[in-house]
């Protein structure tokens, strides 16, 4: 897939994320918009996880530790053919399996998340199991920077480094905001690079909205032999819609009809521009 096609997908995904949230009148808007470029590159260029190979153990894995950004995951999984896109019209509705956090009831999802600070331990076990059996698959997980306040993450890193899990890749959606406000003001999790390095990981930074840069950094893992890799993806919460960007109020705010119309106008304009390039 060309870079232009990937960029176009990013905008289309954003449109679908907002449509999904709008119809449900529920969702985590800002975080889904901040991580969607990462998921786009992972699923369209890196993972090679498809509905056909999903039931095999001998493939790569993606576990979304920051489960609340589930709309981004659903939209990408629908695009990859795991389920019909029309299923998302039931998101958060009566009796639907498409609940507000990832569950294994949905094809393409292999672990239930939503309570923060769980993904890294699970991925450590998954990566360790792969190594025990001599498999070459990699395990990717996405965490929020606010989520890093959960102590269980650091327990997981201790063991991931101890067992030299260079098939484990943690991507931090470093949008610097959480529900209350700036992470640095709530309870700082910075400096991230120093912390991850001290815990025995090999760390790289990337612009989390630059799909080419994301592709290159993800193609380079592991960054060091026998060390877990950490990618600090610098992102903007609410990315792609001007009035949602860098505003913690959009953590799980649902756009009004007027806001939705403006957001769609902006994203459709962006779509025209990316096609023009």
């Amino acid at each position: 897939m060309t870079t232009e096609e990937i960029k176009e997908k990013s905008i289309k995904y954003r449109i679908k994320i907002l449509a999904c949230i709008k119809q449900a009148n529920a969702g985590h808007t800002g975080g889904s918009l901040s991580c969607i470029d990462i998921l786009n590159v992972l699923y369209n260029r890196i993972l090679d996880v498809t509905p056909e190979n999903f039931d095999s153990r001998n493939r790569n894995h993606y576990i979304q530790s920051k489960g609340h950004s589930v709309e981004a995951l659903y939209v990408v999984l629908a695009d990859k053919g795991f389920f019909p896109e029309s299923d998302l019209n039931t998101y958060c509705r009566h009796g639907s399996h498409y609940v507000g956090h990832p569950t294994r009831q949905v094809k393409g999802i292999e672990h239930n998340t939503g309570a923060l600070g769980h993904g890294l331990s699970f991925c450590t076990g998954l990566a360790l199991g792969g190594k025990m059996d001599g498999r070459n698959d990699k395990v990717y997980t996405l965490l929020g920077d606010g989520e890093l306040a959960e102590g269980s993450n650091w327990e997981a890193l201790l063991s991931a480094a101890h067992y030299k899990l260079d098939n484990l890749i943690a991507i931090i959606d470093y949008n610097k905001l959480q529900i209350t406000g700036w992470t640095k003001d709530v309870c700082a999790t910075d400096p991230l690079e120093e912390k991850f390095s001290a815990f025995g990981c090999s760390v790289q930074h990337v612009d989390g909205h630059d799909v080419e840069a994301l592709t290159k950094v993800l193609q380079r893992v592991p960054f060091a032999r026998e060390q877990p890799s950490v990618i600090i993806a610098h992102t903007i919460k609410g990315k792609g819609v001007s009035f949602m960007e860098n505003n913690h109020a959009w953590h799980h705010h649902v756009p009004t009809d007027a806001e939705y119309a403006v957001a769609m106008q902006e994203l459709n304009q962006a779509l025209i521009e990316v096609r023009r390039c």
Partner: protein
Amino acid sequence: MKQKVTSIMNQLELGKANLTVFADTLIDLAKTDKNIVVVTSDSRGSGKLTSFAEQFPDQMVDVGIAEQNLVGVAAGLAAAGKKVFAVSPACFLTARAFEQIKNDVCYSNHPVKLIGISAGVSYGALGSTHHSLHDFAALRALNNMSIIAPADNFETRASIICAAAMKTPVYIRLGKRAIEHVHETDAVFEIGKAITICDGGDVAFIATGETVVQALLAAQLLGRQGVSCRVVSMHTIKPLDIEALVHAARECKAIMTVEEHLVHGGLGEACAAHLLQAGIALPCKIVGIRDEYTFTGTQLDIFKNYGMTAAGLADAAVRLVKQE
């Protein structure tokens, strides 16, 4: 789980600690199954797993003193196809890592085998931080979870063999002291099927874990006083063997439940709830640890203080039958 295992023990002879039998059984299983993996939290010594670790170093994972990570890692290993035994003191495993058990194991339905070692009041005078008197109550509230408290060496070995084959989560809680065999040589173990050890019509003891031997001894005391007792080993707390419970309630004059757990939320309340819903009313007593600052002493001292040894159970049974 339909797998059945038969006893070859002699009743009331002193056996090994259930913990030792657990570790020996795991070694036997691992000899023919490289997918058996043990995860501990610096607990291989207290789990009697030193020998396992020496014989199967590639099937032994230690995460250090980090129970939350222990359970999360175990879930990931299970998802990777391993038969995972997550082994840690019951007190820490079921409290510190409760959210991991709830979400990573039960809600996600990964078949982790959680082994709570030195459970109940096995740690005795070490105090309440080291007691697990909440675990039945806490884990009964989790979807997909099975709960087993083996009474003796036979039930321990059988439950570990059955757990290894299970495709859903299971919690097995094990005591620390050497324990008497409670079964005759022909007993059969199946998860979810209580074992009636002796039959009688006056009082039915529905006991679990290391209190079963006390109930059996109480039945012998009572037999000498002309009170006929049934003793049921309800090794599986969830799913509860309702049929065995209802039979006991219909065929006996009174029921006493016995458990090494707080009187709230465990075996006793589970039985009472089922009996009430089945419309069966009879004299009933829930015996366990009272809701208070726990008495200090050895496991047996604590049992004695709360009326959970043979003499205490026999006294209570007589009062119950006489409706005092």
